[in-house]
Protein backbone atom coordinates (compact mmCIF):
# COMPACT_ATOMS: atom_id res chain seq x y z
CA UNK A 1 0.00 0.00 0.00
CA UNK A 2 2.77 2.39 0.86
CA UNK A 3 6.53 2.22 0.34
CA UNK A 4 6.98 5.73 1.66
CA UNK A 5 5.80 5.46 5.25
CA UNK A 6 6.69 3.50 8.39
CA UNK A 7 5.69 3.21 12.03
CA UNK A 8 8.74 3.87 14.19
CA UNK A 9 7.58 3.81 17.79
CA UNK A 10 4.66 2.87 20.00
CA UNK A 11 3.73 3.02 23.66
CA UNK A 12 0.93 2.59 26.11
CA UNK A 13 0.41 4.53 29.32
CA UNK A 14 -0.23 2.52 32.44
CA UNK A 15 -3.79 1.15 32.29
CA UNK A 16 -5.32 1.89 35.69
CA UNK A 17 -8.59 1.39 37.47
CA UNK A 18 -9.82 4.28 39.58
CA UNK A 19 -7.12 6.86 38.82
CA UNK A 20 -6.65 9.81 41.17
CA UNK A 21 -8.61 12.96 40.30
CA UNK A 22 -5.61 14.77 38.86
CA UNK A 23 -5.03 12.09 36.24
CA UNK A 24 -7.22 13.35 33.41
CA UNK A 25 -7.78 12.10 29.89
CA UNK A 26 -5.07 14.44 28.58
CA UNK A 27 -2.66 13.10 31.23
CA UNK A 28 -3.00 9.58 29.85
CA UNK A 29 -2.79 10.75 26.24
CA UNK A 30 0.36 12.78 26.92
CA UNK A 31 1.94 9.86 28.81
CA UNK A 32 1.39 7.62 25.79
CA UNK A 33 2.67 10.27 23.35
CA UNK A 34 5.84 10.88 25.37
CA UNK A 35 6.36 7.14 25.60
CA UNK A 36 5.90 6.59 21.86
CA UNK A 37 8.33 9.42 20.97
CA UNK A 38 10.91 8.00 23.39
CA UNK A 39 10.40 4.55 21.88
CA UNK A 40 11.01 6.03 18.42
CA UNK A 41 13.94 8.18 19.50
CA UNK A 42 12.25 11.28 18.08
CA UNK A 43 12.11 14.66 19.82
CA UNK A 44 8.81 16.39 20.46
CA UNK A 45 9.95 19.35 18.33
CA UNK A 46 10.26 17.13 15.26
CA UNK A 47 6.56 16.25 15.41
CA UNK A 48 4.52 18.17 12.83
CA UNK A 49 1.31 16.11 12.82
CA UNK A 50 -1.05 14.97 15.57
CA UNK A 51 -4.16 12.83 15.53
CA UNK A 52 -6.29 12.01 18.56
CA UNK A 53 -9.29 9.84 19.34
CA UNK A 54 -10.99 10.20 22.71
CA UNK A 55 -14.52 10.05 24.11
CA UNK A 56 -13.73 12.30 27.07
CA UNK A 57 -11.33 14.97 25.83
CA UNK A 58 -14.17 17.50 25.50
CA UNK A 59 -14.35 20.41 25.79
CA UNK A 60 -10.80 20.17 24.46
CA UNK A 61 -9.96 19.06 20.95
CA UNK A 62 -6.83 17.87 19.19
CA UNK A 63 -5.48 21.42 18.88
CA UNK A 64 -5.83 22.02 22.62
CA UNK A 65 -4.02 18.78 23.35
CA UNK A 66 -1.26 19.79 20.91
CA UNK A 67 -0.91 23.14 22.64
CA UNK A 68 -0.85 21.53 26.08
CA UNK A 69 1.99 19.34 24.81
CA UNK A 70 3.83 22.30 23.25
CA UNK A 71 3.51 21.05 19.68
CA UNK A 72 3.68 23.26 16.58
CA UNK A 73 1.90 21.41 13.80
CA UNK A 74 1.32 21.38 10.06
CA UNK A 75 -1.38 18.68 10.23
CA UNK A 76 -3.98 17.86 12.87
CA UNK A 77 -6.96 15.54 13.04
CA UNK A 78 -9.51 14.16 15.44
CA UNK A 79 -11.18 10.82 14.96
CA UNK A 80 -14.47 9.68 16.44
CA UNK A 81 -14.60 6.05 15.36
CA UNK A 82 -13.91 4.32 18.68
CA UNK A 83 -12.73 0.77 18.11
CA UNK A 84 -11.85 1.60 14.50
CA UNK A 85 -10.14 4.91 15.28
CA UNK A 86 -6.53 3.72 15.44
CA UNK A 87 -6.47 2.18 11.97
CA UNK A 88 -8.63 5.00 10.60
CA UNK A 89 -6.14 7.64 11.77
CA UNK A 90 -3.26 5.57 10.40
CA UNK A 91 -5.01 5.43 7.02
CA UNK A 92 -5.22 9.25 6.99
CA UNK A 93 -1.71 9.78 8.33
CA UNK A 94 -0.15 7.62 5.60
CA UNK A 95 -1.70 9.83 2.92
CA UNK A 96 -0.67 13.02 4.71
CA UNK A 97 2.95 11.88 4.90
CA UNK A 98 2.97 10.61 1.31
CA UNK A 99 1.59 13.95 0.15
CA UNK A 100 4.18 15.89 2.11
CA UNK A 101 1.60 17.54 4.36
CA UNK A 102 3.48 16.28 7.42
CA UNK A 103 6.64 14.31 8.12
CA UNK A 104 6.36 13.06 11.71
CA UNK A 105 2.83 12.23 12.86
CA UNK A 106 1.92 11.08 16.36
CA UNK A 107 -1.43 9.33 16.70
CA UNK A 108 -2.92 8.83 20.14
CA UNK A 109 -6.10 7.49 21.74
CA UNK A 110 -7.30 7.26 25.26
CA UNK A 111 -9.68 8.15 28.01
CA UNK A 112 -10.02 8.58 31.69
CA UNK A 113 -12.92 6.18 32.10
CA UNK A 114 -14.58 6.35 35.48
CA UNK A 115 -18.25 6.19 36.41
CA UNK A 116 -18.98 9.73 35.19
CA UNK A 117 -17.11 9.43 31.92
CA UNK A 118 -18.54 5.98 31.30
CA UNK A 119 -22.13 7.18 31.60
CA UNK A 120 -21.48 10.28 29.54
CA UNK A 121 -19.94 8.10 26.86
CA UNK A 122 -22.61 5.41 26.79
CA UNK A 123 -25.67 7.61 27.24
CA UNK A 124 -24.57 10.19 24.67
CA UNK A 125 -22.69 7.84 22.40
CA UNK A 126 -24.84 9.08 19.55
CA UNK A 127 -28.38 10.34 18.98
CA UNK A 128 -29.79 6.82 18.79
CA UNK A 129 -28.19 5.82 22.10
CA UNK A 130 -29.39 8.98 23.79
CA UNK A 131 -32.96 8.76 22.50
CA UNK A 132 -33.68 5.06 21.87
CA UNK A 133 -31.30 3.00 24.01
CA UNK A 134 -30.08 4.84 27.11
CA UNK A 135 -33.64 5.41 28.45
CA UNK A 136 -34.45 1.66 28.45
CA UNK A 137 -32.01 1.84 30.41
CA UNK A 138 -29.28 0.11 28.40
CA UNK A 139 -26.15 1.34 30.17
CA UNK A 140 -23.59 0.41 27.52
CA UNK A 141 -23.50 -2.26 24.85
CA UNK A 142 -23.32 -5.46 26.96
CA UNK A 143 -26.96 -6.41 26.38
CA UNK A 144 -26.62 -5.89 22.62
CA UNK A 145 -23.66 -8.24 22.45
CA UNK A 146 -25.49 -10.72 24.65
CA UNK A 147 -28.15 -10.90 21.92
CA UNK A 148 -25.45 -11.25 19.29
CA UNK A 149 -23.74 -14.02 21.27
CA UNK A 150 -27.04 -15.89 21.62
CA UNK A 151 -27.60 -15.73 17.84
CA UNK A 152 -24.02 -16.85 17.21
CA UNK A 153 -24.26 -19.73 19.70
CA UNK A 154 -27.49 -20.96 18.07
CA UNK A 155 -26.09 -20.69 14.55
CA UNK A 156 -22.80 -22.44 15.38
CA UNK A 157 -23.86 -24.86 18.10
CA UNK A 158 -21.43 -23.36 20.62
CA UNK A 159 -21.73 -23.14 24.40
CA UNK A 160 -20.17 -21.02 27.10
CA UNK A 161 -17.27 -23.48 27.46
CA UNK A 162 -16.38 -22.66 23.83
CA UNK A 163 -16.53 -18.86 24.15
CA UNK A 164 -14.44 -19.28 27.33
CA UNK A 165 -11.44 -20.19 25.16
CA UNK A 166 -10.99 -16.59 23.99
CA UNK A 167 -10.52 -14.98 27.41
CA UNK A 168 -8.68 -18.04 28.77
CA UNK A 169 -6.17 -18.06 25.89
CA UNK A 170 -5.71 -14.30 26.08
CA UNK A 171 -5.25 -14.46 29.84
CA UNK A 172 -2.33 -16.82 29.33
CA UNK A 173 -0.67 -14.07 27.25
CA UNK A 174 -1.64 -11.39 29.78
CA UNK A 175 0.39 -13.18 32.44
CA UNK A 176 3.43 -12.04 30.48
CA UNK A 177 2.22 -8.45 30.09
CA UNK A 178 2.99 -6.33 33.18
CA UNK A 179 0.50 -3.72 31.88
CA UNK A 180 -2.57 -5.99 31.91
CA UNK A 181 -5.15 -5.56 34.67
CA UNK A 182 -6.05 -9.28 34.74
CA UNK A 183 -2.84 -11.35 34.81
CA UNK A 184 -3.55 -14.52 36.79
CA UNK A 185 -4.24 -17.60 34.66
CA UNK A 186 -7.97 -18.28 34.35
CA UNK A 187 -9.50 -21.72 34.61
CA UNK A 188 -12.66 -22.86 32.87
CA UNK A 189 -14.32 -23.19 36.29
CA UNK A 190 -13.54 -19.56 37.11
CA UNK A 191 -15.00 -18.46 33.81
CA UNK A 192 -18.13 -20.57 34.17
CA UNK A 193 -18.77 -19.27 37.69
CA UNK A 194 -18.06 -15.60 37.03
CA UNK A 195 -20.62 -12.90 37.75
CA UNK A 196 -23.42 -12.58 35.17
CA UNK A 197 -23.42 -9.19 33.42
CA UNK A 198 -25.94 -9.72 30.63
CA UNK A 199 -26.40 -13.50 30.40
CA UNK A 200 -24.96 -15.46 28.76
CA UNK A 201 -22.23 -12.81 29.07
CA UNK A 202 -20.41 -12.75 32.37
CA UNK A 203 -17.68 -10.56 33.76
CA UNK A 204 -14.92 -12.21 31.74
CA UNK A 205 -16.78 -11.77 28.44
CA UNK A 206 -16.77 -8.00 28.96
CA UNK A 207 -13.72 -5.77 28.85
CA UNK A 208 -12.54 -4.41 32.20
CA UNK A 209 -13.04 -0.66 32.12
CA UNK A 210 -9.78 1.19 32.71
CA UNK A 211 -8.24 4.61 32.17
CA UNK A 212 -5.24 4.91 29.89
CA UNK A 213 -3.82 5.90 26.56
CA UNK A 214 -1.98 4.49 23.55
CA UNK A 215 0.15 6.21 20.92
CA UNK A 216 2.39 5.50 17.96
CA UNK A 217 4.60 7.47 15.61
CA UNK A 218 4.39 7.43 11.81
CA UNK A 219 7.00 8.98 9.54
CA UNK A 220 8.74 8.71 6.17
CA UNK A 221 10.80 5.65 5.25
CA UNK A 222 13.77 8.02 4.83
CA UNK A 223 13.57 9.22 8.40
CA UNK A 224 12.82 5.71 9.64
CA UNK A 225 16.04 4.47 8.02
CA UNK A 226 18.05 6.98 10.07
CA UNK A 227 16.67 5.63 13.34
CA UNK A 228 18.42 2.87 15.22
CA UNK A 229 15.52 0.52 15.89
CA UNK A 230 13.60 -1.53 13.30
CA UNK A 231 10.55 0.09 11.75
CA UNK A 232 7.19 -1.36 10.77
CA UNK A 233 5.73 -1.05 7.29
CA UNK A 234 2.06 -0.93 6.35
CA UNK A 235 1.26 -3.42 3.58
CA UNK A 236 -2.40 -2.51 3.36
CA UNK A 237 -5.42 -0.99 5.06
CA UNK A 238 -8.97 -1.76 4.04
CA UNK A 239 -12.20 -0.52 5.61
CA UNK A 240 -15.96 -0.83 5.32
CA UNK A 241 -18.56 1.22 7.16
CA UNK A 242 -22.30 0.56 7.50
CA UNK A 243 -22.04 -2.65 5.53
CA UNK A 244 -25.48 -3.89 6.56
CA UNK A 245 -27.20 -0.65 7.62
CA UNK A 246 -27.82 -2.38 11.00
CA UNK A 247 -30.38 -4.62 9.31
CA UNK A 248 -28.34 -7.85 9.45
CA UNK A 249 -27.82 -10.28 12.31
CA UNK A 250 -24.19 -9.06 12.64
CA UNK A 251 -22.87 -12.62 12.59
CA UNK A 252 -21.42 -11.78 9.19
CA UNK A 253 -19.28 -8.70 9.63
CA UNK A 254 -18.11 -6.17 7.08
CA UNK A 255 -14.80 -8.05 7.01
CA UNK A 256 -16.39 -10.79 4.91
CA UNK A 257 -16.72 -8.28 2.07
CA UNK A 258 -13.21 -6.84 2.31
CA UNK A 259 -11.18 -9.94 3.18
CA UNK A 260 -10.24 -10.90 -0.40
CA UNK A 261 -9.15 -7.38 -1.25
CA UNK A 262 -7.29 -7.06 2.06
CA UNK A 263 -5.20 -10.19 1.49
CA UNK A 264 -4.65 -9.48 -2.21
CA UNK A 265 -3.46 -5.94 -1.52
CA UNK A 266 -1.24 -7.23 1.31
CA UNK A 267 0.32 -9.81 -0.99
CA UNK A 268 -0.26 -12.35 1.76
CA UNK A 269 -2.63 -15.08 2.84
CA UNK A 270 -4.16 -15.58 6.27
CA UNK A 271 -1.77 -18.46 7.01
CA UNK A 272 1.24 -16.16 6.45
CA UNK A 273 0.36 -14.11 9.53
CA UNK A 274 2.71 -14.52 12.51
CA UNK A 275 0.47 -12.70 14.98
CA UNK A 276 -3.12 -11.45 14.86
CA UNK A 277 -4.72 -8.57 16.72
CA UNK A 278 -8.45 -9.08 16.42
CA UNK A 279 -10.60 -6.42 18.07
CA UNK A 280 -11.88 -8.12 21.20
CA UNK A 281 -14.68 -6.15 22.78
CA UNK A 282 -16.46 -9.50 23.27
CA UNK A 283 -15.37 -13.11 22.55
CA UNK A 284 -18.13 -13.49 19.95
CA UNK A 285 -16.75 -10.60 17.91
CA UNK A 286 -13.30 -12.18 17.84
CA UNK A 287 -14.89 -15.27 16.32
CA UNK A 288 -17.05 -13.43 13.76
CA UNK A 289 -14.03 -11.44 12.56
CA UNK A 290 -11.65 -14.41 12.57
CA UNK A 291 -14.00 -16.42 10.37
CA UNK A 292 -14.70 -13.56 7.97
CA UNK A 293 -10.98 -12.80 7.59
CA UNK A 294 -10.08 -16.41 6.85
CA UNK A 295 -8.20 -17.13 10.07
CA UNK A 296 -10.32 -20.17 10.96
CA UNK A 297 -9.41 -23.25 8.91
CA UNK A 298 -12.53 -24.76 7.33
CA UNK A 299 -14.59 -22.46 9.55
CA UNK A 300 -14.12 -25.06 12.31
CA UNK A 301 -14.67 -22.86 15.36
CA UNK A 302 -14.36 -25.56 18.08
CA UNK A 303 -10.96 -26.58 16.70
CA UNK A 304 -9.86 -22.93 16.38
CA UNK A 305 -10.93 -22.21 19.97
CA UNK A 306 -9.82 -25.31 21.85
CA UNK A 307 -6.81 -26.39 19.85
CA UNK A 308 -5.39 -23.34 18.11
CA UNK A 309 -5.97 -20.69 20.76
CA UNK A 310 -5.87 -22.61 24.04
CA UNK A 311 -3.67 -25.67 23.39
CA UNK A 312 -1.31 -24.28 20.75
CA UNK A 313 -1.26 -20.74 22.15
CA UNK A 314 -1.45 -19.26 18.63
CA UNK A 315 -0.31 -15.62 18.89
CA UNK A 316 -3.58 -13.70 18.88
CA UNK A 317 -4.02 -10.61 21.04
CA UNK A 318 -0.67 -11.23 22.71
CA UNK A 319 -1.04 -8.37 25.19
CA UNK A 320 -3.95 -10.30 26.67
CA UNK A 321 -6.18 -8.14 24.51
CA UNK A 322 -8.72 -5.74 25.86
CA UNK A 323 -10.40 -8.63 27.68
CA UNK A 324 -7.35 -8.94 29.97
CA UNK A 325 -5.41 -5.69 29.56
CA UNK A 326 -8.49 -3.49 29.79
CA UNK A 327 -10.37 -1.05 27.58
CA UNK A 328 -9.40 2.55 28.10
CA UNK A 329 -12.25 4.04 26.05
CA UNK A 330 -11.03 5.01 22.59
CA UNK A 331 -7.61 3.49 23.35
CA UNK A 332 -9.31 0.17 22.65
CA UNK A 333 -9.06 1.14 18.99
CA UNK A 334 -5.28 1.44 19.23
CA UNK A 335 -4.36 -1.21 21.78
CA UNK A 336 -3.91 -3.97 19.18
CA UNK A 337 -1.93 -1.70 16.85
CA UNK A 338 0.49 -0.75 19.61
CA UNK A 339 0.99 -4.39 20.61
CA UNK A 340 1.49 -5.42 16.96
CA UNK A 341 4.12 -2.71 16.45
CA UNK A 342 5.83 -3.68 19.71
CA UNK A 343 5.95 -7.33 18.64
CA UNK A 344 7.14 -6.61 15.10
CA UNK A 345 9.94 -4.45 16.48
CA UNK A 346 10.97 -7.28 18.81
CA UNK A 347 10.30 -5.28 21.95
CA UNK A 348 7.62 -7.36 23.65
CA UNK A 349 9.83 -8.77 26.39
CA UNK A 350 8.64 -11.99 27.99
CA UNK A 351 5.72 -12.35 25.57
CA UNK A 352 7.77 -11.74 22.42
CA UNK A 353 6.56 -13.90 19.54
CA UNK A 354 9.63 -15.46 17.91
CA UNK A 355 10.07 -14.50 14.24
CA UNK A 356 7.14 -12.09 14.19
CA UNK A 357 7.37 -10.47 10.76
CA UNK A 358 3.79 -10.09 9.57
CA UNK A 359 0.79 -9.11 11.68
CA UNK A 360 -2.90 -8.51 11.11
CA UNK A 361 -4.70 -5.83 13.12
CA UNK A 362 -8.43 -5.19 13.03
CA UNK A 363 -10.64 -2.36 14.22
CA UNK A 364 -14.33 -2.76 14.90
CA UNK A 365 -16.86 -0.61 16.59
CA UNK A 366 -19.25 2.27 16.88
CA UNK A 367 -22.57 0.67 17.68
CA UNK A 368 -25.01 2.88 15.81
CA UNK A 369 -28.00 0.89 17.04
CA UNK A 370 -27.52 -2.85 17.44
CA UNK A 371 -23.94 -3.63 16.45
CA UNK A 372 -20.72 -2.13 15.18
CA UNK A 373 -20.82 -0.08 11.98
CA UNK A 374 -17.07 0.39 11.47
CA UNK A 375 -14.69 -2.27 10.23
CA UNK A 376 -11.06 -1.82 9.24
CA UNK A 377 -7.96 -3.93 9.09
CA UNK A 378 -4.26 -3.42 8.51
CA UNK A 379 -1.48 -5.82 7.60
CA UNK A 380 1.81 -4.69 9.11
CA UNK A 381 5.31 -6.00 8.46
CA UNK A 382 8.68 -5.78 10.11
CA UNK A 383 11.08 -3.82 7.89
CA UNK A 384 14.78 -4.50 7.40
Amino acid sequence: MTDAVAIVGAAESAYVRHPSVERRTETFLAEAVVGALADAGIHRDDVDGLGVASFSLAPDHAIDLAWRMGMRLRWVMEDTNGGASGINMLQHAIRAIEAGDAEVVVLCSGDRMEKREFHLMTDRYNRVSRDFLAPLPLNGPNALFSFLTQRHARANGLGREDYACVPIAQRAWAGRNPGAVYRAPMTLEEYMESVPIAPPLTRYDCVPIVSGGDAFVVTTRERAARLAAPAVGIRTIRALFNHDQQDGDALTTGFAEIADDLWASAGARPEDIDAAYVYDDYPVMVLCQAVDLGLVDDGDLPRFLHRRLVEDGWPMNTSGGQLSAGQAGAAGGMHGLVEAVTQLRGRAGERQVGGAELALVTGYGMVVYKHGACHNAAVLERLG
Partner: protein
Amino acid sequence: MSASFTVDVCSRCGYAAYPPRILCPQCAGTEWRRRLADSGVVEEITVRRPVFKRRQLPLGNWLDQSETRLGSVRTDVGPVVIARVPDDAEPGDRVRLHAQASTAIALPGQVAEAT
Protein backbone atom coordinates in the same frame (compact mmCIF):
# COMPACT_ATOMS: atom_id res chain seq x y z
CA MET B 1 -50.10 5.54 29.93
CA SER B 2 -48.41 4.16 26.91
CA ALA B 3 -48.60 5.36 23.34
CA SER B 4 -48.57 3.55 20.04
CA PHE B 5 -45.21 2.27 18.91
CA THR B 6 -44.47 3.23 15.34
CA VAL B 7 -41.69 2.88 12.82
CA ASP B 8 -40.99 4.97 9.71
CA VAL B 9 -41.82 3.59 6.30
CA CYS B 10 -40.29 5.01 3.13
CA SER B 11 -43.03 6.53 1.02
CA ARG B 12 -41.26 5.54 -2.16
CA CYS B 13 -40.11 1.94 -1.63
CA GLY B 14 -41.75 0.78 1.61
CA TYR B 15 -38.52 0.17 3.56
CA ALA B 16 -39.33 0.11 7.27
CA ALA B 17 -36.82 1.98 9.44
CA TYR B 18 -36.27 2.08 13.19
CA PRO B 19 -34.63 4.17 14.55
CA PRO B 20 -35.55 6.86 12.00
CA ARG B 21 -33.28 7.75 9.07
CA ILE B 22 -33.05 10.78 6.87
CA LEU B 23 -32.38 9.12 3.52
CA CYS B 24 -33.78 5.66 2.85
CA PRO B 25 -30.91 3.12 2.85
CA GLN B 26 -32.67 1.23 0.06
CA CYS B 27 -33.86 3.87 -2.44
CA ALA B 28 -32.43 7.18 -1.09
CA GLY B 29 -35.97 8.52 -0.70
CA THR B 30 -36.57 11.31 1.80
CA GLU B 31 -40.29 11.04 2.49
CA TRP B 32 -41.41 8.88 5.39
CA ARG B 33 -44.74 7.99 6.89
CA ARG B 34 -45.46 6.49 10.29
CA ARG B 35 -46.62 2.95 10.53
CA LEU B 36 -47.98 1.16 13.59
CA ALA B 37 -45.59 -1.57 14.79
CA ASP B 38 -47.54 -2.90 17.73
CA SER B 39 -46.60 -6.56 17.64
CA GLY B 40 -43.62 -8.81 17.23
CA VAL B 41 -41.73 -11.89 18.34
CA VAL B 42 -39.02 -11.91 21.00
CA GLU B 43 -35.79 -13.29 19.51
CA GLU B 44 -33.33 -12.98 22.40
CA ILE B 45 -33.58 -12.02 26.05
CA THR B 46 -31.08 -10.88 28.63
CA VAL B 47 -31.09 -9.39 32.09
CA ARG B 48 -28.69 -6.50 32.09
CA ARG B 49 -26.82 -5.74 35.27
CA PRO B 50 -25.67 -2.15 35.68
CA VAL B 51 -21.96 -1.66 35.02
CA PHE B 52 -21.86 0.68 37.99
CA LYS B 53 -24.47 -0.01 40.68
CA ARG B 54 -25.11 3.61 41.50
CA ARG B 55 -24.84 6.63 39.32
CA GLN B 56 -24.73 10.31 40.03
CA LEU B 57 -27.40 12.48 38.45
CA PRO B 58 -26.52 15.96 37.19
CA LEU B 59 -27.74 17.69 40.38
CA GLY B 60 -25.63 15.49 42.61
CA ASN B 61 -28.25 12.96 43.66
CA TRP B 62 -27.52 9.26 43.40
CA LEU B 63 -29.71 6.88 41.50
CA ASP B 64 -29.67 3.23 42.49
CA GLN B 65 -29.71 1.20 39.32
CA SER B 66 -31.33 -2.16 39.06
CA GLU B 67 -31.40 -5.05 36.68
CA THR B 68 -33.35 -4.61 33.48
CA ARG B 69 -34.90 -7.36 31.39
CA LEU B 70 -34.29 -6.50 27.76
CA GLY B 71 -35.16 -8.22 24.55
CA SER B 72 -34.50 -8.11 20.88
CA VAL B 73 -37.93 -8.07 19.26
CA ARG B 74 -38.60 -8.62 15.56
CA THR B 75 -41.60 -6.49 14.71
CA ASP B 76 -44.16 -7.85 12.31
CA VAL B 77 -43.48 -4.89 10.01
CA GLY B 78 -39.76 -5.69 9.78
CA PRO B 79 -37.31 -3.84 12.00
CA VAL B 80 -35.75 -5.52 15.03
CA VAL B 81 -36.08 -3.27 18.06
CA ILE B 82 -34.36 -3.37 21.45
CA ALA B 83 -37.11 -3.18 24.08
CA ARG B 84 -37.96 -3.61 27.72
CA VAL B 85 -39.72 -6.96 28.03
CA PRO B 86 -41.94 -8.47 30.74
CA ASP B 87 -40.32 -10.57 33.47
CA ASP B 88 -41.75 -13.79 32.13
CA ALA B 89 -41.03 -13.14 28.44
CA GLU B 90 -38.94 -15.77 26.69
CA PRO B 91 -37.51 -16.10 23.17
CA GLY B 92 -40.24 -17.10 20.77
CA ASP B 93 -42.99 -15.28 22.64
CA ARG B 94 -45.31 -12.95 20.77
CA VAL B 95 -45.56 -9.56 22.45
CA ARG B 96 -47.41 -6.30 22.02
CA LEU B 97 -45.22 -3.23 21.62
CA HIS B 98 -45.94 0.17 23.06
CA ALA B 99 -43.98 3.38 23.07
CA GLN B 100 -42.63 4.53 26.40
CA ALA B 101 -41.30 8.02 25.81
CA SER B 102 -39.00 7.44 22.83
CA THR B 103 -38.29 3.76 23.54
CA ALA B 104 -40.14 0.52 22.98
CA ILE B 105 -41.70 -1.54 25.75
CA ALA B 106 -43.09 -4.98 25.14
CA LEU B 107 -46.16 -6.20 27.01
CA PRO B 108 -47.36 -9.77 27.18
CA GLY B 109 -50.05 -11.02 24.88
CA GLN B 110 -50.98 -11.06 21.29
CA VAL B 111 -52.56 -8.11 19.53
CA ALA B 112 -55.83 -8.56 17.77
CA GLU B 113 -55.33 -10.03 14.32
CA ALA B 114 -54.51 -7.33 11.81
CA THR B 115 -57.32 -6.59 9.46
